[in-house]
């Protein structure tokens, strides 16, 4: 079997693997590295459940081959909490009931993290626009938007 060697830093840890060339990044994370927090919800790059950070930019990890992540840095939902403390986005989703079944949640949080790093004080309309690539079937988005605005307020307050 033809294999590709991939070396990637995931949540701060250097990892390597030999995978089939057709392996998508999301399956490298889920099935090779056992990081199942990143979910797969579609096969058309529509739903955004698989969103991760690649070199601090949010990407849908089903749109990339594992090989394309070679030499780069990946953050997944498992890497968001630090020192046992939840990330402000995670806390805000909890406080504002921003999740129900939880399946879209990791992707939502990763997309929001990337967005807030570019726009720390967004309007509601900007948050909604930023989430266009992430589908949720449970919440109607209202509490997701509220969670992200809440987190933005607290994060910018903390850094001010």
């Amino acid at each position, binding site marked *: 079997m033809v294999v590709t060697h991939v070396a990637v830093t995931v949540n701060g840890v250097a990892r390597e693997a030999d995978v*089939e060339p*057709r392996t998508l990044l999301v399956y490298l994370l*889920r099935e090779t590295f056992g*990081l*199942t*927090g*990143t*979910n*797969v*919800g*579609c*096969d*058309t790059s*529509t*739903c955004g*459940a698989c969103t991760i950070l690649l070199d601090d930019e949010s990407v849908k990890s089903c749109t990339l081959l594992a090989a394309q992540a070679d030499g780069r840095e990946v953050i*997944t*939902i*498992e890497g*968001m*909490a630090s020192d046992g403390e*939840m990330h402000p986005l*995670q806390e805000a*989703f*909890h*406080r504002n*009931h921003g*999740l*129900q*079944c*939880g*399946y*879209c*949640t*990791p992707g939502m*949080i990763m997309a929001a993290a990337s967005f807030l790093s570019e726009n720390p004080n967004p309007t*509601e309309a900007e*948050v*909604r*626009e930023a*989430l*266009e*690539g*992430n*589908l*949720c*079937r*449970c*919440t*109607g*988005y*209202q*509490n*997701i*938007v509220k969670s992200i605005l809440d987190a933005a307020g607290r994060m910018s307050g903390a850094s001010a």
Partner: protein
Amino acid sequence: MATTERYVGSPVPRKEDAEFLTGQARYTDDLVVPGMLWMSVVRSPYAHARIDGVDVSKALAMPGVVAAFSGQDFEWAGPLLMAWPVTADINNPPHWPLAKDEARYQGDGVAVVVAESRGAAMDAAEAVSIRYEMLPAVTESDEALVDGAPLVHDELGTNRSYTWKLTNGDVDRVFAEAPVVVKQRNVIRRLIPNAMEPRSIIVQPTPATGQFTMWSATQIPHILRTGMALATGVPESKLRVIAPRVGGGFGSKLQVYPEEALALELARRLGRPIKWTESRAEGYLATHHGRDQIQDMEIAASRDGKILGYRARILANMGAYLRIIAPGTPVLGAFLFCGCYGGEAYETEFIGVFTNTTPVDAYRGAGRPESAYAIEHVMDALAREVGKDPVEIRRMNFLPPFDEPTPSIGGLTLDSGNYPATLDTALALLGYEEVRAEQQARREQGDRRQIGIGFSTYLENCGWGPSRIIGNVLKYAGGGWEAATIRCHPTGKVVVVTGTTPHGQGGQTTIAQLVADELGVPFDDVEVLFGDTDIAPAGWDTYGSRGNAVGMPAVHRAAQKIIEKARKIAAHELEVAESDIVFEDGAFSVRGAPDVTRTIASLAFSTWTGHNLPDGMEPGLEASAFFDPQNLVFPFGAHICVVEVDTETGEVEVTRHVAVDDVGTIINPQIVDGQVMGGVAQGIAEALYEEAIYDERGNLTTSSMTQYLVPGATEVPSVTLGRHETPSTTNELGVKGVGETGTIASPPAVINAVVDALSHLGVTDVERPATPERVWRAIQAAKGGAA
């Protein structure tokens, strides 16, 4: 320690959140079992075809392939479970997990392969060679009933599955004599549920003992276990079914699916664990669809708009086979075509129809979004017909407020209701007069963007359900009760086991709130277990807004049994008569002497050691209860939608949506609000965006998320929420259900708003979903232009 804090009624953040927020939640596809093989199903590309031969030899020769079979290679103990034969003469041809001679819908399973990896299984599935002879197909229920239409099941000689009818009063006389009769034809489009988690299954066998463990992304591990026993012959005593974390269901995981039976049978046959996870595109064909009705709705009224009678005739598309509750799904709305209004006569008739399409079954609301649409949409038409405001027409027809069981002309006994109150609150939240004034101003200006206001003062029935009624009256084969067990551990920690199977609804939190209050223990000391037939051996799972309405009273009754036993031990330890013991704020004490107490925790310890129990008392502080409601519950409310319609492009924007729901006593307002907001989003989606489309040959053309428009965050508005709490009389907690109200209530409000925005142009109706093209055509037709 006792606590005086009350959890019930508070917006307690959810216990279940942490695992989802950190990526630690385990859905089925996250699980790996040593030695597991991957299954892939080969599906018919044709909507209707004779299977002339299946050749798996090429697939078997591929690397990593372990086995491959056609439908002819299986002998099943029985067909997939169909649990709702609504009439005695229903046509219900068997649905086998794989088609044997004929494929009857695009996506019908024809062969199966098993391989060492996901990729190898998928590659091998493509190498299976199948000879098909294409047959004519039919996809629409009205076309399927025409003489000479292609037959989905030749042996039946008809595409009609059943006719179910309900008549109350002298309908023909009322309609013949009524001065006003308003008729509408509504096409309730076929929808694809789109739970965000695709379905997934793992079956692990223990060949030496004949035992199996099945993990499935299902809403119904208990019913599934029985369904598996019926299909495969594996006894229930040897089968453990686990629904781990489940990423949404909305009815689509309320099913006994072919792949579940196949995975179990293959695990038995091969003696190795089998895994299958559907792709989204596969799910669009293989996971059941929802809705798909053609409704002819009529309402008879006096000249001033007082309703006299209701008559509805429904064609319900069943798809190619009857799935688990498919025949009954439309019938769930059969008693609600009168909404919350009065009248003298009522008739509904449902004709279930086979077509060469993916089977149709429950999708959020299941029958009630359809009935609510029929009545609430025709109410606005009646208002226009008699020249009244839609608010006025509703007020004059509402049943008056009641807090004792009250009959409806639809044949129900309603538990409690106060319909005018929710409408009044919704109008106040909206600022009705201001919006009407703005609408008038835009009309006078001839503004390109016109405003419309749509109403839906819906009524629904849920909390499935009273076993005697659903069995004897509705001919449902299953029960509707619920079970709960409460176990107090020696250190005072409490485990609650529920027979419901929450998958996003927040049951871990709401059940813990109730138990913490009732037993007087801290919220954090209560764990809620579910979704595993070994842990929760009895129950009827989660669907039909029953988790709260039926599951919660069972938990309450188990808690009362715990308290009764604890009271006896407290009396024994405090050396008084049981009747002298009071239980308040989590503390048992002697009446008038509140300083000396016993708590559930201390008494749990006493029952663990058993050193000083009353004579004859069994050790342990544990109780189980079953709750079988005597009636359904009946949530209601008022939704008002405001839209702006671009009269040049036909584009509709929902600018406001006010939802005032009365779902009985509230356990957790934040969770209730979340259910309503999510439900409204799905209802708006149904009204404006979503529609599964087949071409004339039976190909599903909305075959991926890029063609089927699940709305995103920019398409769904924020909902303005209000709430009333009229306790249900069906259970001692006063609770109703909230899982489906938003989806039931909102579609007619949205479409009524679109029609209202254009009514001054002569538009009297708009088809669903109200896409820009459909709205534009309606405007052109009203203008008399080319449409």
